[in-house]
């Protein structure tokens, strides 16, 4: 029986070895579950549709992120976060100005220069740009505080398509960017497969909920380091889960640490992956009780990987080399007024719940759960100016509340089976808690520093945890009675489709009609 099972696969492996790369790729794609292929097609179509609906530079900070990619790709150097003649190149500056793309950012009444006369006018300007017009955006670029990994990766397609006119180049770069979105969907599918024992319809619900999350799909069409951060955080979670479920080996520890380090080299918010990796390793040791030599080896792998990545970054990944980590953001964030732990806890409480009698008002504007977890998590597009109708957010808030109650109920009713999976639960909780505490800390420190004007955090900062969103929905729906689960999942997926198409539609109308 075992031979029968192995024979076709070894025959297939021999066939694969003999086949050319295209046939090999086709064969590998053919081996993917059909449901996953369909969801990836849906994801790819969404990314393409968002790319079409969103004019250049109209995603959050896209002008600055593109300027970073362009400067790195054109010169091989990192832009400066603090000094320089221009934060963007002459080419980008002229496109922002002459196509009215600068005044379009965040201004609902504005429209881009969209006529064929505008196009001819812009093409004339492009022809007269001096040599080096694409390579002079040395700074000061505020996004240059970010570590360089995403920008270094994006400079590869940039170089490949450097000869294209600017607007075409941006469109193509966004397509490459969308690969992070597709990777995230596939990773969530894989995690769901590991956790739900290969029950495919639950995998469809988890990966489908992620694919249809409008804010995530929107971000796939924006040149922004968040896309890689989301994919890497999801990949780190998968690696951490495999570590605690299958046992700690050097290979697994190395994979997880490399992914966590890559996330930290993508964005400062990627640092939350480090405590997740540490938690996973400790949990794996508790569960599998390896020998002292193995523990020492794995510890050395972790320290070596994370320490090596940090050293490489500090030596070569900061402008000029040897600069402060994250452009000095860590120091700046912690250098303001003194940290008040009680005020911090009170600010977190008031973020989610109404103020209790005797409590001091929360620092900053009226900004909390609804704005971050509902409005800007489910959908605030463009530069936050394109939104659903208020009643859509109201429905989403109620649906989320029902979902949280459902998740809690499922957790309680299935506590015994969950207890058996405690290592995976702890790893997922560590991602949730470290992310949320980190965001609250950053927001609180920012409010202390800026006099309470800008809470800094928005819903897209939750997207690195998007896997937990999909998994929570799949777990909750999958815990329903057998005949109820699939119909409820159908309702969730249908709502996701409607929300997703609405987001694309209202964005296209806002910019082009």
């Amino acid at each position, binding site marked *: 029986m075992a031979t029968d099972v192995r024979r076709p696969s070894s025959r297939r492996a021999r066939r694969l070895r003999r086949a050319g790369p295209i046939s090999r790729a086709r064969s590998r794609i053919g081996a993917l579950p059909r449901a996953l292929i369909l969801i990836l097609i849906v994801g790819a179509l969404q990314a393409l549709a968002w790319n079409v609906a969103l004019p250049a530079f109209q995603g959050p900070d896209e002008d600055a992120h593109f300027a970073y990619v362009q400067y790195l790709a054109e010169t091989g150097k990192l832009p400066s976060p603090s000094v320089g003649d221009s934060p963007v190149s002459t080419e980008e500056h002229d496109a922002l100005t002459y196509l009215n793309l600068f005044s379009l950012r965040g201004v609902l*009444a504005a429209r881009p220069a969209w006529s064929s006369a505008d196009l001819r006018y812009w*093409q004339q300007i492009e022809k007269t740009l001096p040599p080096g017009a694409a390579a002079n955006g040395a700074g000061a670029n505020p996004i240059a505080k970010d570590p360089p990994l995403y920008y270094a990766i994006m400079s590869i397609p940039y170089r490949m398509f450097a000869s294209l*006119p600017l607007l*075409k180049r941006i469109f193509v770069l966004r397509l490459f960017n969308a690969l992070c979105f597709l990777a995230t969907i596939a990773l969530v599918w894989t995690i769901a497969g590991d956790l739900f024992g290969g029950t495919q319809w639950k995998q469809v619900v988890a990966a489908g909920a992620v694919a*249809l999350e409008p804010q995530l799909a929107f971000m796939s069409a924006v040149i922004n380091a968040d896309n890689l951060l989301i994919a890497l955080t999801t990949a780190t979670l998968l690696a951490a889960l495999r570590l605690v479920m299958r046992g700690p080996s050097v290979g697994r520890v190395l994979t997880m640490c490399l992914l966590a380090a890559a996330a930290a080299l993508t964005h400062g918010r990627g640092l939350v992956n480090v405590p997740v990796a540490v938690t996973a390793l400790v949990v794996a040791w508790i569960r599998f009780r390896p020998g002292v030599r193995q523990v020492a080896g794995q510890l050395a792998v972790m320290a070596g990987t994370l320490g090596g990545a940090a050293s490489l970054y500090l030596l070569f990944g900061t402008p000029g080399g040897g600069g402060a980590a994250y452009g000095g953001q860590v120091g700046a964030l912690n250098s303001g007024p003194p940290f008040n732990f009680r005020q911090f806890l009170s600010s977190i409480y008031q973020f989610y719940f109404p103020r209790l009698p005797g409590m001091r008002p929360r620092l900053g504007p009226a900004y909390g759960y609804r704005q971050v977890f509902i409005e800007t998590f489910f959908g605030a597009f463009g530069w936050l100016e394109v939104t659903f109708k208020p009643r859509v957010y109201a429905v989403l808030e109620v649906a989320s509340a029902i979902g949280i109650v459902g998740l809690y109920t499922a957790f309680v009713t299935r506590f015994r089976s969950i207890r058996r999976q405690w290592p995976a639960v702890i790893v997922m909780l560590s991602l949730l808690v470290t992310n949320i505490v980190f965001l609250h800390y950053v927001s609180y420190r920012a409010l202390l520093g800026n006099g309470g004007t800008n809470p800094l955090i928005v819903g897209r900062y939750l997207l690195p945890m998007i896997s937990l969103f999909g998994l929570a929905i799949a777990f909750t729906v999958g815990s329903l009675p057998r005949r109820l689960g699939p*119909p409820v999942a159908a309702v969730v997926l*249908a709502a996701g*489709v409607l929300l*997703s198409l609405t987001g694309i539609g209202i964005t296209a109308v806002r910019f082009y009609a």
Partner: protein
Amino acid sequence: MRRRALRASFTLPALSAALALTLILAGALVFFLPYLTRLRPALAGVPAPAPLVSIAEFTVPPGRAACMSTVAIDADASLVEFSLKPGPHAKAGGPPVEVTLSAPGYHASTTVPGGYPGGLATMPITPPRQSVIGSVCFRNVGHSSVVLEGSNEPRTISRSSLVVAGNPVVGDVALTFGERRETSLLAQAGEVFGHISNLTEGLLPVWLIWVIAALAAFAIPMGIVAAFYVALRDLPSGDGVTA
């Protein structure tokens, strides 16, 4: 035999997929169709948007003009919209203002009659045969000054440069072009796709944008429902998939 076939078609996978499809279809009919078919005023371009926070005022003395250059005037621009109000010493409302649009091979003008209290002026114009880049001048043909409203906020300044009474000024008169007819988004789709195509420098021709839009509208829902159905159908029996 017939009963068995009927029973097979009412399995949980089929029913769940049908439910998802029905909800999507119902949602599209209830929410999307009215949104796409409702008649609404159509924009033909916004050379300079209104400010976000504070209105900038550009005072034009009698006999002088404020001119904006590098303004795109589209072939469907049949209305021009801007805000104006009488100057501080006007006694009987604002003075008449002549609006002139000109570009190589194109000239059009319209006049705002005097005596207005101030506010948004929406004036008819003759559109060019094809979209052109030209200038728009507001000439005060009355005896008291007129104030044109606009923006000098860095966030909302457009590419057009403004000259008031012969002097270059930082800012823009807030200016919008519209169409006289009301139209639905569905009827406007070709025009919208043309705008998109222009902003990809022709990388996506209009026909390809039609294809992408159709794919997004049909393949996204169908793809998700198909994935869900396939996953449910492939479950072994006993996993709760038969109703």
